[in-house]
């Protein structure tokens, strides 16, 4: 039977197992919206297209499935760019559908025309302009395949209006044929053996774990491998949750705002095993002094990540989960040798324990609320429920990373690569859609929350009981911190004394609002917020000029930290 392009899109989504779509309508996609109620997929109407993409992204990070967004042409499409770039930098699988003017008008500066395929080429894993309805099923099939396989990423499909109206005989392909796309999944056995041999010789080994471990669902095997070999584990911002931070072997996060022990352990390591990480400059600091004595092993599904910034001695291209599984098999086969190895580096672990005692993550409690204390209290009150913690960007993000102990993968949703203020709230809505019964928290700054604050309406419309914790320091705090430390306190354009009354604002939207100004109110206010079955904004008026420590100044080696 013949179907219209609009029907084909929706039917194909169903076949791909897509349950929800975040979107915003307009003229170019009106035919698709017209069909929408006839299909099982549930649509969430956001209040800004950027939020649609972030919500799809939050859904994808929380579930591991492909997130889907749908917007109209022109401004609808251009509004997705920040969301796409955010997902691209963090390798999040998305398929984003944009409307487009009819094929006959493309290139004519037609009303609401934008060359979105051209605009998003560098911030998508791949993108398509559909030129005929006949190509549509194949393109959708390919898009989902590309988004979720290899190193995941966002794929955009641009849908001219006539393609949505035209009809063709619908057949959804079972397989894809992409001669130029064949990501390596299985690690090379020879390289895996070589890596294990190098590990066996290590006296000061460290696992350096990035977001790839989460994306490939490798947390469990990683934890087993590290525990068996007694190798300490540090994670990047993107890797939080891949290894339980409550574990004895956890070093916490490394890098610019990493822990003292993580940065020291990496610097002094003799074998550094990078697992689904990409040696980002926020992690390595000054690159020629990063792990200077270490033999570096690197497993990553993306060959371009290997030896991009740091020369790798033993590269393994492949899926992190698959490679670690295979390593564990060898470890089991040679259990005596590896047991002897595990017992051989007590002095290294003792050294690390000493570093741990020397400079713990800390802050000084005062009469005014310290933002770290808020995060610590959230952790204490909620850790057992394994909530999903989202963040905005800035100091709030770093404190959320430092003062909450993540123990499970996909419970930490944060824009790492792009550092997108305004990401956290819509991402939290996406996560809450995926898990209606779990506690979802957005740890926010007073600046960031105002970047997508309109999504309060979405939260209320769909009764998504997300808890937004605003650490209101009256500043664009992270920039202010840099100005304080490196620009002689020249606070140019970072004071934000004019903010809305967040409590009233939340109430005006039909959500709940709470505020606390004194440390002794923090716990009770949080408990109250978590007990309200509604979206809640909780404003904590916190110390204005608190800084995030440790801090490695840009361009310095990570062993040179400014401490509290």
């Amino acid at each position, binding site marked *: 039977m013949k179907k219209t392009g609009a029907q084909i899109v929706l039917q194909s989504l169903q076949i791909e197992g897509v349950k929800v779509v975040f979107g915003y309508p307009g003229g170019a996609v009106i035919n698709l919206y017209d069909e929408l109620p006839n299909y099982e997929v549930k649509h969430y109407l956001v209040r800004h297209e950027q939020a649609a993409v972030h919500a799809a992204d939050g859904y994808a990070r929380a579930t591991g499935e492909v997130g889907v967004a749908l917007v109209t042409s022109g401004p609808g499409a251009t509004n997705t760019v920040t969301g796409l770039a955010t997902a691209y930098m963090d390798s999040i699988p998305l398929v984003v559908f944009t409307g487009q003017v009819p094929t006959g008008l493309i290139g004519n500066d037609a009303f609401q025309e934008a060359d979105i*395929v051209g605009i998003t*080429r560098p911030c998508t*894993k*791949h993108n398509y302009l559909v030129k005929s309805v006949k190509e549509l099923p194949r393109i959708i099939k390919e898009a989902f395949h590309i988004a979720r396989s290899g190193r995941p990423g966002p794929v955009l499909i641009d849908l001219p209006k006539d393609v949505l109206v035209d009809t063709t005989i619908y057949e959804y392909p079972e397989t894809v044929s992409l*001669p*130029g796309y064949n990501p390596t999944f299985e690690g090379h056995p020879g390289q895996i053996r070589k890596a294990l041999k190098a590990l066996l010789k290590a006296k000061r080994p460290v696992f350096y774990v990035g977001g790839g471990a989460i994306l490939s669902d490798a947390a469990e095997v990683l934890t087993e491998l590290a525990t068996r070999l007694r190798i300490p584990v540090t994670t990047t911002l993107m890797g939080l949750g891949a290894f339980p931070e409550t574990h004895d072997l956890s070093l916490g996060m490394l890098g610019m705002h990493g822990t003292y022990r993580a940065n020291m352990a990496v610097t002094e390591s003799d074998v550094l095993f990078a697992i689904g990480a990409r040696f980002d400059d926020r992690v390595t600091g000054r690159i020629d002094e990063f792990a200077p004595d270490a033999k570096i092993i690197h497993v990553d599904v993306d*060959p371009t990540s290997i*030896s*991009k910034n740091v020369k790798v001695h033993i590269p393994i291209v492949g899926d992190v989960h698959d490679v670690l599984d295979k390593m564990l098999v060898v470890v089991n086969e040679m259990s005596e040798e590896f047991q002897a190895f595990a017992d051989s580096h007590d002095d290294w672990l003792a050294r690390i324990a000493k570093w741990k005692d020397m400079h713990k993550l800390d802050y000084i409690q005062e009469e005014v609320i310290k933002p770290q204390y808020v995060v610590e209290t959230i952790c204490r009150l909620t850790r057992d429920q394994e909530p999903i913690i989202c963040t905005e960007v800035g100091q709030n993000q770093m404190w959320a990373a430092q003062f909450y102990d993540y123990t499970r993968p996909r419970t930490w949703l944060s824009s790492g690569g792009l550092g997108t203020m305004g990401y956290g709230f819509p991402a939290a809505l996406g996560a809450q859609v995926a898990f209606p019964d779990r506690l979802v928290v957005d740890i926010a700054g007073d600046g960031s929350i105002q970047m997508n604050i309109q999504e309060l309406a979405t939260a209320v419309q769909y009764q998504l009981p997300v808890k937004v914790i605003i650490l209101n320091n009256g500043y664009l705090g992270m920039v202010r911190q840099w100005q304080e430390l490196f620009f002689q306190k020249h606070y140019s354009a970072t004071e934000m004394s004019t903010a809305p009354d967040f409590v009233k604002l939340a109430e005006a939207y039909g959500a709940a609002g709470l505020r606390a100004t004194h440390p002794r109110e923090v716990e009770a206010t949080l408990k109250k917020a978590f007990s309200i079955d509604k979206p809640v904004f909780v404003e904590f008026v916190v110390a204005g000029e608190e800084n995030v420590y440790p801090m490695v100044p840009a361009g310095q080696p990570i062993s040179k930290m400014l401490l509290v």
Partner: protein
Amino acid sequence: MKHVIGVLVENEFGVLSRISGLFSGRGFNIESLTVAETDDPAISRMTIVTLGDDQIVEQITKQLNKLINVIKVIDFTNSDHVSRGLMLVKVSVEGSKRLEVLKLIEVFRARVIDMAAKSAIIEITGSDMKLRAFLDVLAPYGIKEVNSTGIVAMNREVKGRSRHKIKAA
């Protein structure tokens, strides 16, 4: 160091801009780029001449391979290959210089394809080095215009078979 890189791509809308965008977006250098269909109209072949140390060229080939529409990437630099470019040169040939220029053309096995009162258009094919040498010897006569296709390259056959099988799977 100069590298000649061959790229087989799906002959699809927008592929050229994906490739040129990759070079500009990542700060890679393009000295020349040629593109045309192969014997299979579904596949095009590009030849890119780029400058960079080994690490940069390794990134370039990896990044090219990462593009969905790229089927194969060949770095010719360290293999036994031939490379050719075609160049048109308009050179002034006034008075007594005419014969001298014609002599040079013969030595380089170039061809005159247009002769006017004051200038000639010369066609020459050859390796990058030959083309540059030709320009050097013509320079004293007065070069008015140069237009070149850029380099295309191919590996030589080794022991009865092509060293790189370049047909798409």
